[in-house]
């Protein structure tokens, strides 16, 4: 029993350490900082860009520009012209953002390919043409009382989860079709 507790405690310690590491990384390590000094040409010295990983209070020409290209008496004049900027970024955020964005985009593209190419093909193979025609029919339902029916049936809960998802998807597709009609065919909105 005691052994079990020990390992447990050990585990907790590792997890805390990991968390600490992660936090530290998030706060200090991954969030890269730099001090960038741009020094224009001076006399016979070429213009140069210096970058150093220093904190904000050290971000000036004297700390960052090394080796100093000019002699001692000219340092002040040279440094007057350099412009030092302290910048920070968080490369972790950028990485996560880009990867997240690309994965969402990829999923959407896959779903789009499925919806436009694969599904009609599968449906045709499985059900023949009848299903397609039927689904076209119930879009054109414009009875005034059908609408009320819709509104009221929304409040009733459906027992089956899968059924619900199917129903929601059908409704969404109908809505998109309606939107497509009004935007691209009838040009009543957003033209």
């Amino acid at each position, binding site marked *: 029993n005691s052994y079990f507790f020990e390992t447990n405690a050990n585990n907790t310690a590792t997890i805390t350490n990991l968390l600490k590491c992660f936090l530290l990384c998030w706060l200090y390590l991954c969030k890269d900082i730099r001090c960038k000094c741009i020094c224009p040409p001076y006399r016979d010295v070429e*213009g140069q860009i210096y970058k150093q990983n220093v904190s904000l209070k050290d971000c000036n020409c004297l700390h960052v520009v090394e080796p100093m290209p000019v002699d001692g008496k000219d340092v002040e004049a040279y440094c007057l012209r350099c412009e030092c900027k302290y*910048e920070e970024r968080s490369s972790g955020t950028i990485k996560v953002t880009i990867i997240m*964005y690309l994965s969402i985009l990829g999923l959407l*593209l896959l779903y789009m390919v499925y*919806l436009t190419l694969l599904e009609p093909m599968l449906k045709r193979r499985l059900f023949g043409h009848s299903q397609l025609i039927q689904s076209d029919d119930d879009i054109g339902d414009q009875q005034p009382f059908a609408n009320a029916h819709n509104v009221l049936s*929304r409040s009733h809960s459906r027992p089956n989860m899968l059924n619900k998802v199917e129903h929601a998807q059908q409704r969404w597709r109908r809505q*998109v079709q309606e939107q497509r009609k009004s935007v691209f065919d009838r*040009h009543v909105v957003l*033209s």
Partner: protein
Amino acid sequence: MESEQLYHRGYCRNSYNSIASASSDEELLDGAGIVMDFHTTEDDNLLDGDAASRGSNYTMSNGGGGPSSSTHLLDFLEEPIPGVGTYDDFHTIDWVREKCKDRERHRKINSKKKESAWEFTKSLYDAWSGWLVVTLTGLASGALAGLIDIAADWMNDLKEGVCLSAMWFNHEQCCWTSNETTFAERDKCPQWKSWAELILGQAEGPGSYIMNYFMYIYWALSFAFLAVCLVKVFAPYACGSGIPEIKTILSGFIIRGYLGKWTLMIKTITLVLAVASGLSLGKEGPLVHVACCCGNIFSYLFPKYSKNEAKKREVLSAASAAGVSVAFGAPIGGVLFSLEEVSYYFPLKTLWRSFFAALVAAFVLRSINPFGNSRLVLFYVEYHTPWYIFELLPFILLGVFGGLWGAFFIRANIAWCRRRKSTRFGKYPVLEVILVAAITAVVAFPNPYTRQNTSELIKELFTDCGPLESSQLCQYRSQMNGSKAFTDNPNRPAGPGVYSAMWQLCLALIFKIIMTIFTFGLKVPSGLFIPSMAIGAIAGRIVGIAMEQLAYYHHDWFLFKEWCEVGADCITPGLYAMVGAAACLGGVTRMTVSLVVIVFELTGGLEYIVPLMAAVMTSKWVGDAFGREGIYEAHIRLNGYPFLDAKEEFTHTTLARDVMRPRSSDPPLAVLTQDDLTVEELQSVINETSYNGFPVIVSKESQRLVGFALRRDITIAIENARRKQEGILLNSRVYFTQHAPTLPADSPRPLKLRSILDMSPFTVTDHTPMEIVVDIFRKLGLRQCLVTHNGIVLGIITKKNILEHLEELKQHTEPLAPSWYYHKKRYPSSHGSNGEPRSRVHHVQLIRSFQDGRREEDEEEVCLLNGSNL
């Protein structure tokens, strides 16, 4: 008298549910007198019946609230019908009714507050939900803006090359730590590889140029294609800028799904693609749409907002402020934008919430730090150089340019969009996007100013030439001999780099002007702010450099003599670019205060407010001289949204009688009687007509008004009664009164519909001037208004009728103008040439003849507007 015949025929032919609409005064007076004498007793009855509900003027308590104890003493058995009080797609909301519903709900919560601790907590939650929802909205829109910024930057650089060490870095981030960069080639670093380097293995030479050119076009086309496909398949509402639609929605229109989850997701994803594809568009306008989607989605978490359309619009106002706040990094500018441009109903409470939402959003974006410069926008600049009074002249000239550009752009873009809307050309949205993207990419690549991201271009143009600038714009001749001190450099003679930059900028200006006209309105998310600002900034920079050179070569002119001594820095070209950008944006959108504040927040310099104000005001004046509406109003008009502009004035002398429906030639008004209809008759009325609401009268003899019932509510109530209540048959009696009418013993159970009856519809008399009616509609946000004469219902005026009336009055004074000319807001004088008021008959006849011509011309517009008619 023809109208009299119509009256009689109509009266005889029509059944119980119709009364005649009469048009001549004599008839009305006669009829009214008789009815008045005859039906006094019945009216008294009506008043008695109402005594129970006198406590509140409004007895509409369905949907959100449920019956309150004070108004429905006798209705304790009645529960609210689900769905009553909601709206159909493409309908106009009734602000008055929604506000009453909210007050009712508030009263209920307040009265229950003392009952228990739980109720008290609930009331606290309710009170705080407004702040909570705007906080969540601010958080979400800030985070999404950060995502869009980062992803768009990366994708934009993907057209040029890729970072080998870390694929997810854009060009600048890739070279972040690289120490190999030199002053001359500060943009190059070994980690960043252009496509030619990767594919051909060489960075220089014509072969690599062609390779880069090809890859640029390839990426631009594939981004544009992906964007338009995603929009078309998943969310067609995600296209365009969204601001005209949001304006319309905020004024009280329902477009279902416009602010939904899918629209949000697709707009966010495709916005990045569209910006990265190099099309001449910006992400600022769509960000407002994205923020509004967030506001709408989060308002579903709070019943106070999800069930009340008017309250929801308060959240949307705050959300649009948050959107501009993150788009420009200008929180106060965002609040003012919401107030000046998009919002329709903006109470002080909303102002504070907008302020808070803008603050939260800006804070979140700032902590994400998407550009790595600790700023919210890429083109943030800081100036400290002063400006001189003679410079006001070029600033005003820039304002004139901005106004001209705005007027030209609005006309050209509307003409193009009208073509897209009305001809077969609009049937190929994907092809159109591909075509425009291809032309843009092919033309843009050779010119360095059009090749780069528009935000970066604006940044370069805004930034003043210091000693550290490497851009071609700053290659002044004095910089070549390095020994001279740079920081206190006077105006310098331009070097060859500046001259070639001038040429390129001129070409870029022409290119941007042409492409923006064809780009705005494509079926991808496309904003207008950035291209407009770019055009203004290019023009401003050109003027600025011209002024600078003028001051350098002619420093003995009396203007320059005083301020620009030799060796003194007096002209700042970057400032001119900024003023030009503000002027062009002002010309297109016709914003003033919010625009100046936005630009001022972009630069952080208070001293440039006067030049900005001068330029923006001038551009508004010049633009207004050519047409009074901004691009958003023009698009609203083009699409025929029912938007009643609060800024316009109504100066005609027409009366409510001239505008109300039915017209004398139409079939009589469809009405319901309060207690002698059956369910079957009611259903047939609903099925046979397409009106969205029916006045309820005492009886067909009396024709006195009782209230107003909406079509949607009636259908829902009947359907509901069929499901829940036993014994409702087709021949059941329907009654709107407090007590059931006395019925024969064998008749089925009657159906009480009092709860869906609006007992306090707005009424005006038939002689009310339209000025007052229009004012009532604007200020109260009415959906419809009944027209009475001596207490008898004559007709109805809806928002759509008013809009049609405005359009007719506007058009029949300028019948010879070309079609786009109609979009000007010019009012005809209401008086004839001899100073006498025009006769009313004349008005009506002209209107009618015009109407016939219009019907076929734009059926689409009428179709959409029909949604909001009654």
